[in-house]
């Protein structure tokens, strides 16, 4: 059977696997849309599973979590492996050692079950997270993907048809949240810590710079981070809550401003948020408000779909299987895989 001859429809069940960075994840997705189960290693008690190793970026941690996570995804979905029609897995971008654990496991399952293997771009999968929770989305869309590792604005014209409109030239927004929280001793993880502290601070107390505000669709957050540190060093008595609130306001102002400028420029009917920073409450409320005044639909996926997960891999895998077909079993992993249109992998 040639790769494109697979019957892909609403009854097609895809097992998604994700190991590109911090999380080992597996999910069962029906018809590219319905999440039957979704398991992320940090959510389950791995201590009970195999005695105390907390999964992190290390590839051996992924290796130890892989089988328990896949088993739990199948058990939660209450399906037999024979019901799985394809196995989709992140092939990049990410850490090479971590990626290879998922890719090898997915290929092994695909061979053992005699079903297609589908290599998925992690960034492309984030674009699909919005579709899993909002059935009314219509193209063209603008997606703001904002996490610890990435900050990008993507135009999505159709399935598999994207353009990168802008991205960070230095630090990702989530990294700035994390480092500022650590600098202010607000705790870890930094995103939720700043979010909490900011509710008690004055967002107008300090006017931090909004870098590149009217300068294209790229972002820069490195200078903001330095500016916060310099301000605190110069004013040791400053209220950390005011610093947190003012910093958060500066980040959100830039993200909202550029996302909606992009949406207007490409005539988008909807705006979708993705990535861990999409859980930030100020970003969510200001995106919603900006959407209302611009008459553009704003889709805010829940936290589980914003952060790294395998349901989005299953959904993106379903779409890729339908439009491009299965991936050859001899493809590898691509640590610096870019977000490219129509899903061509670097060696295809």
């Amino acid at each position, binding site marked *: 059977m040639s790769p494109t001859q697979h019957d892909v429809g609403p009854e097609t069940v895809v097992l998604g696997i994700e190991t590109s*960075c911090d999380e080992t994840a597996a999910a069962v997705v029906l018809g590219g849309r319905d999440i039957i189960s979704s398991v992320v290693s940090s959510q389950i008690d791995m201590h009970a599973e195999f005695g105390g190793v907390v999964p992190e970026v290390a590839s051996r941690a992924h290796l130890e979590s892989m089988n328990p996570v896949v088993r739990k995804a199948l058990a939660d979905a209450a399906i037999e492996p024979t019901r799985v029609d394809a196995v989709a897995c992140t092939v990049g971008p*990410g*850490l090479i050692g971590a990626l290879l654990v998922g890719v090898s496991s997915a290929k092994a399952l695909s061979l053992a079950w005699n079903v297609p293997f589908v290599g998925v771009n992690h960034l492309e999968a984030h674009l699909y997270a919005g579709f899993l929770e909002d059935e009314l989305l219509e193209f063209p869309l603008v997606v703001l993907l904002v996490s610890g590792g990435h900050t990008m604005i993507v135009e999505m014209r159709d399935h598999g048809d994207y353009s990168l409109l802008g*991205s960070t030239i230095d630090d990702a927004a989530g990294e700035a949240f994390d*480092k500022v929280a650590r*600098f202010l001793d607000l705790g870890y993880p930094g995103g939720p810590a700043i979010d909490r502290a900011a509710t008690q601070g004055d967002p107008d107390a300090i006017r931090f710079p909004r870098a590149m505000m009217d300068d294209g669709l790229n972002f820069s957050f490195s200078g903001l*981070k*330095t500016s916060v540190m310099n301000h605190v060093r110069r004013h040791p008595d400053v209220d950390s809550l005011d610093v947190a609130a003012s910093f958060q306001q500066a980040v959100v102002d830039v993200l909202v401003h550029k996302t909606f400028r992009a949406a207007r420029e490409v005539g988008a009917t909807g705006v979708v948020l993705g990535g861990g920073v999409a859980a930030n409450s100020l970003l969510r409320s200001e995106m919603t408000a900006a959407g209302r005044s611009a008459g553009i639909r704003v889709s805010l996926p829940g936290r589980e779909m914003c952060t790294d997960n395998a349901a989005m891999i299953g959904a993106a895998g379903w779409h890729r299987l339908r439009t491009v077909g299965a991936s050859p079993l001899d493809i590898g992993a691509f640590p610096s895989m870019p977000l490219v249109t129509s899903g061509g992998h670097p060696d295809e």
Partner: protein
Amino acid sequence: MLYRSHHPQATADLASAIATLVRKGDVVLLMGDMGSGKTVFAQAFARSLGVDEPVTSPTFTIVNTYSGSRWPVFHADLYRLDRRVEVADLALAELAEQGVLIVEWGEAAFDEVDGHLAVNFDSDPEAETIREIDISAVGQHWLQRVDRLEALVRELS
């Protein structure tokens, strides 16, 4: 050897100068507090090795891989890794063999690589843009080039 940087651009100039001495297999470890200039150094270093896309922070992605004009350039950041087993898993020595490796929060990589150039950034609390940068060669690989390195740093100072 010591280099006093008065401005981020001076830190970038130092990185570009050091990049002219680089060979395949080299490792540069950057150490210093947040905001002390490690990323500025890494960006200028990578650009001088022919990387033409934006060099972004690898804090969350851990290792970013770029095509340089002669070899791949690996830009790593060990800030989030607090256990030696995690650093060992990155196989940094294997990456370095394929091209040039530059590591932020590089102290955690001491045991993982053989020879390296250690670049230590010290901020002056009294002056926001001034950095004392201490450069030292570790291992035969870099020691052979120490005279040329000293000459370059003198020229910049």
